[in-house]
Every structure is written in structure tokens, then in C-alpha cells.
């Protein structure tokens, strides 16, 4: 094969792989629905065979498209189902329920996750990865507990559009049996919480719990709060509001227990001890034994806070703090002294030189951990305030631009490819005019959350202006970027917003260009903006692929 032919084959394989992934996602969704029906004993004579064939197909084909893990798991499930599929007479519901138990349904649901474990197809497949689901699959798994299957399905469909991976179960007990440790949020109808909510106390690692209910009285809400519920929404549920609510609770939860701490101490034993205590508590720790290394350690680790001894050999903590403040980038970094000095005068003096707080030794391990954790959390929140857009939690304009610049430099240096996209909501002014700004804000948040879920953690997502967003996809081909953005457009158009009892949808226009083809990242952003403008001119709701001026601009699907 010639080299040209080889890359052409690789490109086509990559396309086939994408097609397979799309189809497999659909098939798995169907399988999930069928097996859910098996659980409740609702199935026709051909349904078992159909499910068996579907698994058999996945088992046989997934590996060919680079999803070996999916193929193997499907094969395992296929073998379990085989005895049922081979029974010629009608199968009794009990027989089916014996095989298709909670664990089976759970495994079927998780098949989708295997689609994110992609490997190269064949030996020469293109390096471009497909960041459609990426890491989000496990992070965004949401359990919906509702006794009314129709309502549950509505919630499932609604939340799927927002990028969550919802699973509906009829009772709270089943949700607990299913396991809550990997679930991002639990949505439960209020009657079940009030009746069975106590069960949650025995479960460890509960995610944020949101209760849904028709009753809206003070007494009921108080009772829910007493049960330890994190949020409440009235029924009928406004899905975008629910999605936003969940997003907030999940983010808070994720951030409250984490943090990055740099400890500076010249006593190696103490350094190790503090380090272990904080690491045990789930924090990330960087130990600096020699204060002279503090600057390089800081730029490499970028901690949330610094924990520093006051007197370290010939170095004094307050002087080090003052020195750090020479660097504008470290002006906001909280520095906390660990010191046996409890003279207030001395403490105030030290703080005047750039320190923020004191923890007086001796300090118990438990107190140290808690004190450091809250300070990390606080430092993150403050940092967010400065760098993140308050409405959406996405990067602010200037920061997004500088991140894209960093990505541009990286592409140039390593010869990699990346894509810049500009996104703009269609006719957004009309939304604001008709429904008011609060509704408009909800739409903006809806898109922000959708992007957060559908893109990878490594992607740059920024709010560029009012209803304009900028995205950079590192290590991504133009074609993959187009598909991803196309799917964002599709999902956005499917979200039904509500205001004043009216339902409406909002579409999205996108322009994309290859970042590495431009001299500067600003040029790329401008070009993406022009591509966006072309899409606006040619009917909105879709993706325009722009690029090198020598290549004629074309539109795709």
C-alpha cells in the first residue's frame, strides 16, 4: 500500500469507527430499555432473542472497530443470555428475571462506558480520538428513583440531552442495591424519601440527593431537609432548571474534599508527617524540604495554598512570603504559617509581610486536615471568582484566550493538531425579549453544562461574550471536531426550555478551524468567528468548517 493510500484507509477506518460508535450507542440504549422491561416481566416471545442477537452483534463487531473491551463484555453477557435464547418455547418471566437481574441490567448500562475506552483500529489508525463521551460517562451517571415509569422516562430523556447518563429505578432500595458510590447524583420522588429516606443514612458515600415533589408546603420541605436532602424541585419538573441544580451540587461536592497543598518545612520528619496526614485526607501534597526550591516547585505544582514553617535554618518564612509576592502571579496565593510562636505581635508582623494565616503548633492531625481542607476550598472559590464566569462557571474571555494561546504554542512545538470553535446561540435576543433575562440565563447555562458534559476535561471552554462561547479541542482532527460540535448542536436543539407555560427550543451556530494552521491563536479565533458568521448567514443551527484561506470554505451537514 502506498503511504497516501494508507492514510486514506486510516481516515476511512476512523469514519467507520465513528459510525459504529454512534450505532452501538443506540443499540445499547435499546438493549437497556429491553432489559429494564425484562426486569418487570414485560416482554414478548421475540424480545429475548432480539436482545441476544444484539449482544452477539456487539461481541462480534466491537473489536473490529477498536472497542475490544466492549466486545468482551458483550460476549460475557451474550453467553449468560444464550440458554434463554435457545429455548424454543415461551420463556417464563421468572426464568428471565433469574438471568437478567440487577447486576445484568447494570452491566448492560455500563456497556456505553466501554465505548470511551477506544483503541486504535488496526495498526495504522489515525491518532485522533473521539471525545464524545470521554471521562464524563462515570462522572455523570445519575440515578432517578420514581415509581411512575413514564415520569422516570421523561426525566431520563430530558437529562440525556444535558449530557448526563441517567438510569431510572423504581425504588430507593433498588438504587441503594445498585450502589451509590460511583453515582454523581440521586434524584428521588419526595414520597419515597419521606418513607424510606432513612435507608440512605446506612449507605456510605451518598451522592447529592435531589427530591422531586408535588407538595410544596413548609412542613414537607422541612421534613425533607430533616432527611438530609440536598435539593428540592417542584413537579412538574423544569428539566433545564433540574440539570443546572444538579450541576451545581455535583461541582460543590467534587470540590469540597479536594485541594492542592504545598508544604515547606526544613524538618524532613515533620514534612513527611504533615504530608501523610493531608494525603490520607484526600489532598494532593507537594513537599518542599529546601526553601530555595520554592519558586520552581510553585510553578510546577500550582497549589491552592502553601503551608510554611516560620523558621527554616537560615531562611525565615515571612521573608520567603514577601519574596513570593514579587511575582504578580503569586499575589493571590494564600500562605499559612505553621508555627509554635503564639505571640500575637509576631504573628501580625509576619502577616504584614505577605502571609495570610497562622496555625499554631502543636496541631492535631484532625484539626490540621480540616483547617487545610476548608482553606483550599475557599482559595479555589476565590480563584474561580477571578477566572470563571459567574453565570456559567466557564473560563472568562481573557483566560480562555490565554489557554488557547498555550494550546497553539503546544501544537506548534509538537506538531499536533487542535481545533478552535466559536459558538453562538441563534436569535438569542428574541429569547431575552420574549421571556426575560432570567430565562435567557437559563438557556446560556444549559449550553454551558452541555459543553461541559460533552467535551473532555482537557478541552478549553470559555464564555466569550453574552451568548457567545469559545472552545478549543486539543489533539482533535477537524472532522472529529465537526462531529462533536454537530452533536452539541443537535442536543442543544432538543432541549425544551419553559417560560410562562410556553415551551421553546434554542439552536446554536458554530464555526470551527484548525488551530495549528494559523500564525497566532488570535488569527485562529478570528477565522473561527468568520466561519461562525458564514453559518449564521446560511441558515444557522449547524457547524461551518473554515480554515486556510487557500482552501475554499465548505459547509458540512
Amino acid at each position, binding site marked *: 500500500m502506498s503511504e497516501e493510500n494508507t492514510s*486514506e484507509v486510516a481516515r*476511512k477506518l476512523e469514519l*467507520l469507527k465513528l459510525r*459504529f460508535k454512534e450505532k452501538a450507542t443506540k443499540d445499547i440504549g435499546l438493549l437497556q430499555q429491553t432489559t429494564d422491561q425484562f426486569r418487570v416481566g414485560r416482554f414478548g416471545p421475540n424480545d429475548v432473542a432480539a436482545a441476544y442477537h444484539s449482544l452477539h452483534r456487539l*461481541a462480534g463487531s466491537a473489536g*473490529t472497530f477498536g472497542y475490544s473491551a466492549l466486545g468482551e463484555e458483550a460476549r460475557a453477557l451474550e453467553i449468560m443470555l444464550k440458554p434463554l435464547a435457545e429455548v424454543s418455547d415461551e420463556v417464563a418471566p421468572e426464568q428471565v428475571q433469574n438471568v437478567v437481574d440487577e447486576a445484568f441490567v447494570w452491566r448492560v448500562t455500563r456497556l456505553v462506558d466501554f465505548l470511551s475506552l477506544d483503541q486504535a483500529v488496526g495498526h495504522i489508525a489515525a491518532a485522533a480520538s473521539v471525545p464524545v463521551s470521554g471521562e464524563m460517562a462515570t462522572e455523570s451517571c445519575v440515578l432517578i428513583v420514581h415509581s411512575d415509569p413514564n415520569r422516570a422516562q421523561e426525566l431520563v430523556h430530558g437529562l440525556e440531552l444535558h449530557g448526563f447518563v441517567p438510569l431510572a429505578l423504581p425504588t430507593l432500595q433498588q438504587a441503594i442495591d445498585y450502589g451509590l458510590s460511583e453515582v454523581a447524583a440521586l434524584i428521588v420522588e419526595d414520597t419515597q424519601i419521606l418513607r424510606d429516606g432513612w435507608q440512605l443514612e446506612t449507605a456510605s458515600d451518598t451522592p447529592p440527593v435531589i427530591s422531586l415533589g408535588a407538595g410544596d408546603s413548609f412542613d414537607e420541605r422541612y421534613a425533607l431537609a430533616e432527611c438530609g436532602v440536598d435539593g428540592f424541585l417542584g413537579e412538574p419538573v423544569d428539566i433545564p432548571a433540574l440539570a443546572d441544580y444538579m450541576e451545581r451540587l455535583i461541582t460543590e461536592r467534587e470540590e469540597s474534599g479536594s485541594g492542592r497543598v504545598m508544604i515547606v518545612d526544613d524538618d524532613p520528619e515533620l514534612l513527611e508527617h504533615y504530608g501523610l496526614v493531608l494525603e490520607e485526607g484526600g489532598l494532593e501534597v507537594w513537599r518542599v524540604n529546601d526553601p530555595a526550591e520554592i519558586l520552581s516547585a510553585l510553578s510546577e505544582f500550582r497549589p491552592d495554598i502553601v503551608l510554611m514553617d516560620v523558621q527554616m535554618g537560615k531562611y525565615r518564612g515571612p521573608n520567603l512570603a514577601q519574596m513570593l509576592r514579587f511575582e504578580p502571579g503569586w499575589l493571590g496565593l494564600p500562605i499559612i504559617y505553621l508555627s509554635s510562636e503564639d505571640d500575637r505581635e509576631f504573628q501580625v508582623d509576619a502577616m504584614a509581610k505577605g502571609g495570610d494565616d497562622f496555625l499554631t503548633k502543636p496541631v492535631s492531625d484532625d484539626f490540621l486536615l480540616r483547617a487545610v481542607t476548608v482553606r483550599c476550598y475557599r482559595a479555589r472559590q476565590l480563584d474561580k471568582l477571578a477566572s470563571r464566569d459567574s453565570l456559567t462557571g466557564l473560563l472568562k474571555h481573557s483566560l480562555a484566550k490565554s489557554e488557547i494561546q498555550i494550546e497553539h504554542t503546544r501544537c506548534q512545538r509538537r506538531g499536533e493538531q487542535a481545533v478552535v470553535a466559536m459558538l453562538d446561540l441563534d436569535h438569542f435576543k428574541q429569547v431575552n425579549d420574549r421571556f426575560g433575562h432570567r430565562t435567557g440565563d437559563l438557556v446560556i447555562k444549559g449550553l454551558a453544562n452541555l459543553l461541559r458534559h460533552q467535551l473532555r476535561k482537557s478541552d478549553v471552554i470559555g464564555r466569550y461574550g453574552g451568548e457567545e462561547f469559545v472552545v478549543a479541542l486539543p489533539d482533535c482532527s477537524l472532522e472529529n471536531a465537526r462531529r462533536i460540535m454537530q452533536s452539541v448542536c443537535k442536543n442543544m436543539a432538543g432541549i425544551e426550555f419553559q417560560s410562562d407555560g410556553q415551551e421553546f427550543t434554542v439552536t446554536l451556530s458554530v464555526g470551527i478551524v484548525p488551530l495549528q494552521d494559523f500564525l497566532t491563536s488570535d488569527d485562529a479565533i478570528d477565522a473561527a468567528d468568520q466561519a461562525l458568521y458564514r453559518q449564521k448567514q446560511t441558515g444557522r443551527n449547524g457547524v461551518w468548517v473554515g480554515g486556510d484561506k487557500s482552501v475554499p470554505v465548505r459547509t458540512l451537514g
Partner: protein
Amino acid sequence: MTETETTLERIMLVEDEEDIRAVAELALEAVGGFTLTTCASGQKALETLAEFKPQLIVLDVMMPGMDGPTTLKAIRERPAFVDTPAIFMTAKVQPEEVNGYLSQGAVAVIPKPFDPMALSDKIRDIWSNLKPEQRSA
């Protein structure tokens, strides 16, 4: 290449799954340089057989309606294709099952999933191990 050897050119693939047909086209035409005709069902294969005159037939085992073994049986009833070498493709590769397929008149079994980049070589290997009289032009 010696004179007695006949080169494999025309392959027929019978496979109900569209994805697999597409990837096999790529694997056998673009990568392998063969001339391939794909059929979505056993019925379709029987209709196309006389016109395409395949030198080798690759059949998926599990297909709705006519499955692979049934299709092969029907093909063998056509005098012109009594001896055309056939290969089964299947996700089931228990040794006793392989023997079962071979006894039904297949010359080899290719397990699924297959590596699209290696499929042509595999088929060429199978072809070169056939007896000369099986390798019709």
C-alpha cells in the same frame, strides 16, 4: 509465482451487518486489492452468485432468515459452485464449533472480531494453503 498457482481476485462476502460490510470492503478492497461483492443476506448471495462468479465466499454464521450454514448448503446445490472454497466468520470460536463448521464444507473459520488491517493477509494465507484444484480462476 509459479504457473500452477491461481491468484485470488474475486471474493463474495455475505454479512447482514452494514458496519462489518463497510469495514470489510475497506479491508479487502483498499488494503488487500481484491475485487469484493458484498451481500446483505443469503438470498441476495444466491441471486448474485452466477453473475459475479466468486473464487472464494466468506459467510457470516449468524444472520436473520438464512444463516451462514444454510446459505452455504444452498450454494452447494448450484453445480458451478459445488467446490468453491467458503470461509465462515463467527464470534463463536469454541474448537468443537470450528470443527462443526469445517464439516459443513468450509475451508476455514475466521473469528470475529477481526482486525481490518490483517484480514487480507489472513485470507491470502487461507487461499495459499488450499489444494491447487480448489483454487479456481
